[in-house]
């Protein structure tokens, strides 16, 4: 049999089991065509309950004002902005997987990109809530948009990092959504063409935009994906860079650090991959997709976690070193007293951050640990706790004890409604994710089919025979395969 493409046996297969194209469609679309399990309903209802509590908490904030949160002088940014940066960071892994790994031609991305991109979109929606509701008078949120108005016209300040953020995040959301949806079109058409029920024919017919699979359309689709990937790659780096500018361009000790952009981007990818792991370890089990999201995929992502975790570690230490080396008293106070000093009011948070982000991921140097699902899931939660504390350390410990001791607010702790808002975004995120996993193919069906004959287990075995053949014979056969 002539092989379409040769790939070495050294690389493990990305699709396990004896699969053909039809079997792939069956396996991935099965959850959409069958009724949701009790487990799905339980999870979904918990998520909706959390969402409702979040809506209640935010409603209180809108009615009574930002005073519902325990923000004060000097902690004007507390849990809300911490949560904002945390969610935005989580989103970054999706774009990294879908865009950067596409440019680097990493075949393993096909198993996880769809779910990771969905995660990105939901995480960005959650992140966006925090700055919006933090405005207090949220009905004036449209003031951030530059348009000729009757107030002067007073334009928004284009030199302000906060406005850059508005542009960065809205662009990031739009582009991620377009990229994700463009990829979904062929798969939605697959669901549509298999549909037996009337509503399914209608819904997937509507959402698949009349996709037929024409060769010309595929050619344009590939061109579109490649260019969108090329655009998303600098975009994703710019988004967290600009988020870090919110802090780095200020003159607050602990914030105005030139290392912030790369440090934030590495941290974002780190926490994002942890969230992908948390979601996929569960999803692959519940939807029985272990043959598509294999232990190999989990292993590779854990390698990225240990790499980015270590980059973040180097950034922490560099920051610390520079605060000593720079010999600026205020900078030194922010680091040595507000953070490193374990007995300062919030000193403990610095050690949670260090422990969770720098030390704990080091266990992923061991292959056995990387391939252990329980360890992976546990670690992914630990990493996200650590990354939440990283943002908390950066934001709160830099400002709660500033230049004037009389305005120190050493007792900042969140109010129930601040916590409720955060829990509410979890509700929003998981409500979206549960609906996505029920109504959309969680794995890119067409992309898996595309790599099947190269990376599928049954096809790789045939390549094992090919490796035994004399080179000339093999080359001859390959030359005629196209």
């Amino acid at each position, binding site marked *: 049999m002539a092989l379409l493409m040769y790939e070495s046996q050294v690389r493990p297969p990305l699709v396990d089991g004896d699969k053909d194209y039809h079997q792939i469609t069956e396996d991935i679309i099965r959850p959409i065509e069958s009724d949701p399990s009790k487990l799905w309903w339980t999870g979904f209802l918990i998520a909706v309950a959390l969402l409702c509590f979040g809506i209640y908490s935010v409603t209180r904030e809108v009615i009574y004002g930002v005073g519902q949160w325990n923000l004060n002088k000097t902690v004007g940014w507390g849990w809300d902005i911490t949560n904002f940066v945390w969610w935005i960071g989580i989103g970054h892994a999706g774009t990294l997987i879908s865009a950067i790994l596409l440019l680097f031609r990493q075949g393993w991305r096909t198993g996880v990109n769809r779910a990771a991109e969905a995660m990105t979109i939901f995480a960005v929606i959650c992140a966006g809530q925090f700055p919006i509701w933090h405005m207090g008078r949220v009905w004036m949120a449209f003031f951030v948009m*530059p348009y000729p108005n009757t107030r002067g*016209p007073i334009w928004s300040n*284009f030199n302000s990092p906060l406005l850059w953020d508005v542009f960065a995040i809205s662009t990031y959301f739009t582009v991620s959504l377009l990229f994700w949806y463009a990829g979904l079109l062929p798969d939605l058409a697959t669901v549509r063409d298999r549909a037996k029920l009337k509503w399914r024919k*209608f819904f997937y017919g509507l959402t698949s935009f009349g996709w037929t699979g024409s060769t010309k359309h595929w050619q344009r689709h590939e061109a579109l994906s490649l260019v969108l990937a090329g655009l998303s790659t600098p975009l994703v780096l710019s988004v967290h860079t600009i988020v870090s500018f919110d802090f780095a361009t200020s003159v607050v000790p602990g914030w105005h650090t030139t290392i912030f952009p790369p440090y934030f981007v590495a941290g974002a990818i780190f926490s994002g991959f942890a969230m992908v792991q948390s979601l996929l370890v569960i999803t692959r089990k519940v939807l029985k997709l272990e043959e598509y999201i294999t232990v190999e995929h989990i292993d590779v992502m854990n390698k990225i976690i240990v790499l980015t975790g270590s980059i973040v570690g180097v950034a922490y230490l560099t920051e610390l070193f520079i605060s000593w080396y720079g010999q600026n008293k205020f900078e030194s106070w922010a680091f040595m007293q507000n953070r490193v000093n374990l007995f300062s009011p919030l000193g403990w948070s610095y050690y949670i951050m260090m422990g969770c982000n720098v030390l704990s991921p080091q266990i992923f140097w061991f292959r056995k640990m990387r391939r252990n699902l329980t360890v992976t899931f546990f670690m992914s939660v630990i990493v996200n706790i650590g990354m939440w504390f990283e943002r908390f350390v950066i934001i709160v410990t830099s400002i709660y004890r500033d230049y004037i001791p009389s305005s120190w607010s050493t007792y900042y702790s969140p109010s129930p409604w601040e916590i409720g808002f955060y829990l509410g975004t979890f509700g929003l995120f998981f409500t979206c994710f549960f609906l996505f996993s029920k109504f959309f193919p969680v794995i890119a069906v067409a992309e898996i089919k595309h790599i099947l004959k190269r990376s599928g287990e049954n096809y790789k075995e045939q390549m094992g025979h090919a490796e035994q053949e004399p080179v000339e014979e093999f080359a001859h056969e390959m030359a005629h395969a196209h």
Partner: protein
Amino acid sequence: MSIKKFVVGCFTEEQALFSAVKKVRSTGYKIHDVYTPMPIHGLDKAMGLRDTSLHTAGFIYGITGTTTALSGIGWIFTSDWPLNFGGKPHFALPAWIPITFELTVLFASVGMVLTFCYLCQMAPFVKKHHFHLRSTDDLFVMVLECTPTSDEAEMSTFLNGLGAKEINVQEAETGWWLGRYDRNTQPFEKKTASTLA
């Protein structure tokens, strides 16, 4: 937009497609299209389709975004309402780079996706003829267009010889029409002499 007659051949292996396309073209039959469940690299070249210019469109949208941002902010901050930020220059190019970059990316991506949908004639409620429902699952469907002189039986035997598993003759609308996939809507009434009159 017209109703034509087609001979449809379904292949189960994509390798067979390349040689089939070559033979069909050298014999002189007209390939209407090949429908595949996933992208097949090189098939567009084999079919003689030209490269897409979507990239070029994307580039043009991108520089439109760049100019929009730079000229917009430039006009606002130097002429329409020059705000004084601590005596710093009104024309502060470095500070405008982030927004300029974001708008470049935004214009390029939105423009490209809209162009893609326009070129492929894709939108909600757009319906097209399906030659085979499994062409989005596991079949590679080659569709040959009939001319007034062509012999369908001969074309079917020819496709069979190339390795097509399932062969049939269909009359189909080539364009798109508005419709829902849960309803069997006929695109247009057949324009016979009586209806035209």
